[in-house]
């Protein structure tokens, strides 16, 4: 998806610049979550005549990400956007990049809660841990006691482990008599479905089913529908991401909510932050940006379902999404 032009013309009100290359280092390069992120980066680059590279690790192997970052520095990248999924490992590479005059921002993940893990210029995104915490908090509005299971495809992997840790913390902080059990599913969605099915078989009176990755979330929706768990005392079911089956489950009421982390922004904004830094000779320094999260519920699921858009990753074509009517608010 890169622009084929060799050097950029002037775009809009901006001066002519070299064709800058921004490298995104991701911990799970092929994860569908980041499909819209890549579109966001691509669209931003198109606007300003830059190009981007999407690289890193497939299975959140930090060493591979470090290698990719080092390679980006060697190759003379003009800016780096980095998912800082480890609070120590990227300190050296980021410093090295900064020393080499390459601006670095973090996106999607920014070290640990107590330590941002690098000297990046700014963080653009919604924290994984925070989003997990939000998952739990939202569930707490519907549940006061009982058993809650949290499904995670690959325990220990840094793209999702912080989410489940966040959710667990939310329940702990609430002080309610709720037992939260993290349950491992599988990177293979088909296995995940069987595992969630089995768990539910063994825990007929489970009060809440949460999931922290796209595959597990869609499977939770399917299992709730299959056993009509809504009629059997299940109080809350929710998860992450917007794949078609998940949206269908939200629509049918099998899932109460799913969290949209607005991944498009996590690609679009870092490109602009890096671009403006380069353009202004460092005068415009990237700023902390919370890309937020959005709860998709039965009330607002329709536009997600009815329109396939590049902004959610469900389509490749750039097109205008029409909307009308009032905007929901508190």
């Amino acid at each position, binding site marked *: 998806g890169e622009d084929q032009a060799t050097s950029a013309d002037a775009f809009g009100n901006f001066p002519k610049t070299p064709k800058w290359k921004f490298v995104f280092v991701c911990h799970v390069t*092929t*994860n*569908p979550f*980041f*499909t819209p992120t890549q579109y966001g980066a691509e669209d931003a680059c198109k606007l300003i005549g830059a190009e981007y590279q999407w690289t890193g690790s497939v299975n959140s192997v930090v060493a591979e990400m470090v290698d990719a970052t080092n390679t980006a520095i060697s190759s003379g990248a003009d800016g780096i956007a980095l998912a800082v999924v480890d609070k120590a490992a990227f300190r050296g590479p980021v410093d090295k990049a900064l020393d080499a005059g390459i601006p670095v921002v973090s996106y999607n993940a920014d070290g640990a809660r107590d330590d941002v893990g690098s000297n990046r210029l700014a963080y653009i995104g919604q924290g994984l841990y925070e989003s997990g915490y939000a998952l739990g908090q939202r569930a707490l509005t519907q549940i006061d006691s009982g058993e809650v*299971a949290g499904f*995670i495809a690959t*325990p220990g992997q840094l793209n999702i482990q912080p989410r*489940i840790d966040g959710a667990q913390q939310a329940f702990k902080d609430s002080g309610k008599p709720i037992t939260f*059990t*993290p*349950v*491992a599913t*599988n*990177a*293979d*969605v*088909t*296995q995940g*479905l*069987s*595992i969630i*099915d*089995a*768990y539910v*078989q*063994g*825990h*007929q009176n489970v009060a809440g089913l949460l999931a922290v990755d*796209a*595959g597990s979330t*869609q*499977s939770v929706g*399917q299992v709730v529908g299959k*056993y009509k768990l809504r009629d059997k005392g299940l109080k809350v079911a929710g998860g992450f991401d917007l*794949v*078609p*089956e998940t949206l269908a489950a939200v629509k049918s009421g099998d899932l109460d909510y799913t969290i949209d982390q607005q991944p498009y922004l996590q690609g679009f904004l870092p490109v602009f932050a890096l671009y403006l830094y380069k353009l202004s000779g460092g005068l415009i320094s990237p700023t902390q940006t919370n890309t937020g999260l959005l709860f998709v519920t039965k009330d607002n699921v329709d536009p997600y379902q009815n329109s396939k858009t590049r902004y959610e*990753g*469900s389509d*490749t074509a750039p097109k205008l999404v029409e909307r009308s009517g009032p905007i929901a608010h508190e």
Partner: protein
Amino acid sequence: MSDTIASPAATGADQPEPPRPARRVLRTATDAFLRRREASVLLVAIGLVVYFQASTPIFLTTDNLRNIAQATAPTAIVAVGIVLLLVSGEIDVSVGMVAALAPYLMHYAIDLYSIPAIPAILLALVIAAGIGFVNGFITIRLKVPSFVTTLGTFYLLYGVLLTTSHAYPVAIPEPTKGNIQTWLGAGDWATLAWCLLVVAIFHIVLTQTRWGLHTISVGGNPLGATEAGIRATRVKTGNFMIVSVLGAFAGLLEAFRINSIDPNIGGGTRITFTAIAAAVIGGTALAGGSGTVIGALLGMLVLAELQNGFNLLGISANSFFLIQGIAILASMIANQYLSRLRRAGRT
């Protein structure tokens, strides 16, 4: 076959009195059972059923059995192909990608090229066969070790999958909804039925046909098989094609079952890895020359039972793996112990 008992030596082994008819029938049946290589894995699988049923009464409910069946079937189908290929002395690590790609191929054919459902499904299977053929060609004609060849095709297919699908799940094509989807995976016992059919067919192929005999020969003694005039190229390439087609078929079944075409079907190398594990647990040698299709099914059943049973018991994520690891080791040690007993106890 092959693994059968020798009759008593004529050289003076004292024969026990023949037992009375009723007991004799029973004993013959028991013997015939124990003589099978798959007997010990079956006993392990049964042992696990007993254990889990004792731990939780839900284990043997219809719902849960269906659940186990669905977790067993697709990987077992792949494992059947893997058994044939391992027996012939080769390996295929790309089959998981074929499983992921096949539903997309069907989706492209139907939704982009407006091909009707059944031909689209067949097309996906034919392309899979083509992939198997290429694997075979590069491995045998160009003499690249099959592990490396299929590692190459793994990445290649992964690239094709990602670039064409943008790593995003899509819905099952409309024209397949209804009967086709039900029969090809969504029906409660559909995957199991297909799995049993595939197992039955390839059990016969491996044990009762020339193809099977030649597969064992090229894996067991490649030089000798060639000396005997067996065309190793054809046999091995054929088995590569069988694996790919079965992989594609398993992928289609899974897509229909989970009602979504997802790039993570097969989980990359997960399905291959698990299929190899199932095959090896069932008694297939990684080094080639021997293996059983039914054993692979039982091996997969053992793995699925362990997964399902501990999930039923509600073991949480982190300790799950600990327990699963111990359980695998314990079952397999028991398995070996049983099969030693079996061999020693032959009459």
